């Protein structure tokens, strides 16, 4: 199993380019199933989850062509089966996103239940209830969601909880439903807006993207299109934090500063000098030690849960006492134990991590437990004294495109051991 070996202590300096957003490209790839024509997706990140999604679509018979610049051409008209098997869905919960498009376009879907999740309960019952409200006949049996519908019909759906994938699944399904669908308490994240923009580019009629109420006027068919995926705000934030935590200066280009405002506020509070342009963000710590910050995670545009673990790493070495409260997901502090093994002084009080910053962490063998937790371990390793060996890095490959190449480019001493 591959590992990352990181020798810390180098202030990172330089520029890099943001990749396309994982959380945008996965629903967009699922949404290509709705098209009655060729779809080309650009700015696709090179990630394990993208590979898994392509395998999922490929096993259904969808024709996929990928070029050397990671542009993906999808022809959903060649589809033969409507089945998402357990062995793929269990490795990537986002596989559930094919449920809505399959049902809306082909009238049938058989998708494995995702099962347990390392970062807490994220039930799919809201997806199912919403699709049933649109007229689908759904049975959950033998670990699979089996759904059928002649043609979905518009419905007024009020989501009990704000759910990003639930909003996306129902949004996609509604584009081909007969009549108008209203989704209330919808997720407002930029990636949901990007999906709505993609669907609109195919001919869907959607209003309210980025607000709590989505209105979708169903159409008879959606056409092929070309679309460029939104830059990854979480990847951008992680590299900016890598600059800040090491006392360095990092500029991320080809990104969207307006999608990362809450993170920039906290970086400034930590003592970083932050400058932005239309498509770039630069953070300069000028060799200083960061100051501890207080954070509450909450839905966009507040502080994203996907940046929580990275800021726990920052607080671990910051001056003062920091507090980070996780309000979005339960059980999302599994990185804390590993950081403690590196010398961090962190205590957990319910859903809050309280850190007393130490001047120096020490390298240690650590284990990645989920995607963002593994990013926090890499950040901690960048400032630790000695070597840190990060195990189970398949988690990090799910969400960070070429992390060791990008960090090496900034001056980090990082290498990957082969399988």
């Amino acid at each position, binding site marked *: 199993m591959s590992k990352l070996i990181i020798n810390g202590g180098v202030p990172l300096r330089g520029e890099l380019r943001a990749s396309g957003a994982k959380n945008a490209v996965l629903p967009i790839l699922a949404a290509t199933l709705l098209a009655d024509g060729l779809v080309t997706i650009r700015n696709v990140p090179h990630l394990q989850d993208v590979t898994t999604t392509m395998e999922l679509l490929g096993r259904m018979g969808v024709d996929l062509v990928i070029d050397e610049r990671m542009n993906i051409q999808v022809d959903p008209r060649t589809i033969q089966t409507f089945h998402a098997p357990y062995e793929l869905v269990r490795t990537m919960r986002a596989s559930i996103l094919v449920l809505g498009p399959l049902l809306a376009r082909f009238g049938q879907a058989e998708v494995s239940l995702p099962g347990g999740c390392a970062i807490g309960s994220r039930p799919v019952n809201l997806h199912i209830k919403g699709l049933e409200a649109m007229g689908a006949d759904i049975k959950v049996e033998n670990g699979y969601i089996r759904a059928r519908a002649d043609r979905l019909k518009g419905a007024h759906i009020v989501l009990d909880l704000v759910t990003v994938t639930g909003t996306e699944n129902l949004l996609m399904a509604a584009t081909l439903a007969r009549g108008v669908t209203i989704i209330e308490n919808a997720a407002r994240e930029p990636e949901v807006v990007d999906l709505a923009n993609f669907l609109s580019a195919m001919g869907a009629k959607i209003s309210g*993207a980025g607000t709590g109420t989505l209105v979708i006027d169903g159409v008879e068919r959606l056409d092929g299109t070309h679309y460029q995926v939104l830059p990854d705000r979480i990847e951008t934030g992680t590299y900016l934090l890598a600059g800040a935590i090491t006392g360095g200066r990092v500029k991320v280009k080809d990104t969207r500063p307006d999608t990362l405002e809450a993170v920039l506020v906290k970086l400034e509070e930590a003592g970083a000098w932050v400058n932005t342009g239309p498509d770039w963000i630069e953070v300069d710590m000028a060799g200083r030690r960061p100051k501890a910050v207080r954070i509450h995670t909450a*839905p966009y545009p*507040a502080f994203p849960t996907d940046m929580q673990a990275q800021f726990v790493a920052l607080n671990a070495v910051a001056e003062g006492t920091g507090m980070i409260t996780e309000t979005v997901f339960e059980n999302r502090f599994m990185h804390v134990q590993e950081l403690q093994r590196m010398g961090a002084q962190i205590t957990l009080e319910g859903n809050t991590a309280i850190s007393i910053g130490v001047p120096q962490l020490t390298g240690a063998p650590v284990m990645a437990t989920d995607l963002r937790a593994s990013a926090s371990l890499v950040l901690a390793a960048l400032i630790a004294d000695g070597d840190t060996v990060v195990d189970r890095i398949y988690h990090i490959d799910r969400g960070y495109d070429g992390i060791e190449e990008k960090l090496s480019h900034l001056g980090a001493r990082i290498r990957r051991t082969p399988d």
Partner: protein
Amino acid sequence: MIAATATRAGDTLHVHGELDFASVAALWETTRLWFRAESIRQIDLSGVHRSNSAGVALLATWWRTAHRDQQALTFVNVPAQMRAIIQVAGLESILPLA
């Protein structure tokens, strides 16, 4: 088509139109020059007829800029739709709403 515009009268910025992911980046680029050149103390949102979460993110950007320059800034006439998003995001204690 320009979805959103801003005009300045004294120390007040008046914002008009629709704030969404397509319009906020351009609006920020326009208004940041005013923030640099002279102090903006108040942002009047009465002309905003529609906004999504990107519009609220823009308020946070304006607030961060003013805060960094140690300038007081107040948002006035915030539409109900924007207030709802601010509340869901838990930003009501950070953004200075009149």
